[in-house]
């Protein structure tokens, strides 16, 4: 662990970004044939594929509840997505992230509209370079939209971190490893409400407030990209339909 500086004297990070700059993010919608909805995201070097099935009959049946649909999420990392091969069996980390991802997306879904059904969100991390949970949440809301599931809003997510005593936006692996705090959040941007917040590290109350504001700003940028992708996707579909 050499003592490499993660932030240069002129305030640039190892990949040349400013402190409040996000990495290049590219969403793609409708990438799978079988899934009812799907999306793919490249978020810096992070690459994730999300497929959504549902609303569909609960399986096993005892999962069904009479007044709403059950949302299920599985966050899973491919063995080849990280430096050291990861066993394909779900780790404790993956099980926890599956839970918080589900709880970040569920508030956006009109679950009462589909009693006795399930909506299943499956995310595969093909390459991990930080912010995989945020990228998963952001891509999954596009996949949910692609599946035609009525939503209150998209969910947009990003992480902020404290690196060398500065609050920075959207950390990648190397920054994360040597950072002293990490805070992913997810919001429904047009509602200004939080659906996910986690944190570990050390932040004073002032740092926390600053970090939170920076994260919100980042989420708005993600939101913009999500909407642009959605719009051009549905435009394409519409054009396609007109050509029929």
């Amino acid at each position: 662990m050499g003592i490499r500086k993660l932030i240069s004297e002129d305030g640039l990070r190892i990949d040349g970004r400013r402190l409040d700059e996000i990495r290049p993010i590219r969403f793609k919608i409708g990438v799978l044939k079988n899934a009812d909805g799907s999306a793919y995201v490249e978020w810096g070097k992070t690459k994730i594929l999300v497929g959504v099935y549902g609303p569909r009959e609960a399986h096993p049946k005892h999962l069904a509840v009479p007044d709403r649909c059950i949302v299920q999420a599985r966050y899973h990392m491919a063995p080849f997505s990280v430096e050291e091969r990861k066993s394909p069996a779900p780790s404790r980390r993956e099980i926890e992230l599956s839970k918080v991802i589900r709880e970040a997306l569920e508030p956006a879904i009109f679950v009462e509209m589909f009693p006795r059904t399930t909506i299943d969100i499956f995310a595969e991390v093909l390459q991990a370079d930080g912010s995989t949970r945020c990228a998963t949440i952001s891509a999954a809301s596009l996949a949910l939209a692609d599946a035609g599931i009525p939503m209150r809003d998209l969910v947009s997510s990003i992480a902020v971190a404290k690196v060398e005593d500065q609050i920075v936006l959207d950390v990648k692996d190397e920054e994360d490893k040597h950072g002293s705090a990490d805070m992913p959040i997810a919001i429904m941007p047009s509602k200004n409400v939080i659906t996910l917040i986690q944190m570990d590290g050390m932040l004073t109350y002032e740092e926390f407030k600053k970090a939170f504001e920076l994260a919100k700003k980042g989420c708005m940028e993600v939101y913009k990209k999500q909407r642009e992708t959605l719009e051009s996707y549905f435009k394409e579909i519409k054009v396609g339909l007109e050509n029929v």
Partner: protein
Amino acid sequence: MSNIVPSIKKRHIMALAESGKRIDGRGLTDMRKLEIRTNVLDKAEGSATVKLGDTYVIAGIKFEIGDPFPDIPNEGVISVNAEFLPLASPTFESGPPDERAIELARIVDRAFRGAKMINTQRLCIIPGKKVWIVWVDIFILDHCGNLIDASALASLCALMTTKMPRTEVIENEVKVLNEYVPLPISNLPITITLAKIGDKLFVDPSLDEEEVMDCRISVAFVEKNGQEHICAMQKGGPGILTPEELMRAVEIAKVKSQELRKIVLSGGE
């Protein structure tokens, strides 16, 4: 499974909260009665029970010699595990930890890690080869709400009273001595969980409150260099928080964690 009973209960809880009251008589920011007992077991190197109202949790500490992680070869390992015992609630079943137990253990673990509470370098025995693994096992004995805070507290108190075996290394063979030193602990993170019901926040939610809550937010504070720092945070449950609610929760947690830390430092109760 009808949702009628919970929705009546929820309306009742919300109506009471309008006048700052709760169904068990507490104010919104009051914790339940707390009883901490430490060193309750002889065979564990550290142990504590916590009763928070009727919620009852035990944490036990065991040491084992093992291999370090390749990327931190000179540091010991802290492993926090939680078991939701089937005797603790009719909703718990036998079997490996489910997502609730795993989330709880990881929240507790992150607060310790965020606070840099344990000096893991002092748990190294032979650099790069042999280190202490410190097992923190949390057992939920009676589930009456707010397992996170009770578990974090029981683990903290168990670790604070833990005696670490001394070792001697002779020609790369580790010999465990019958002597003990305290575990190298410095900062004490305290986790405070609040339930959100309607637009109100309830400190230390009871089981009744958890059953109807929209979501919960847990915030851990630690004092370092005379200043309070947030060292872990986690929203749970399928509801939403407004930014104002989040800020309010953090402020309440700051106050309550200081109160609680005083109790811990004064030896419980």
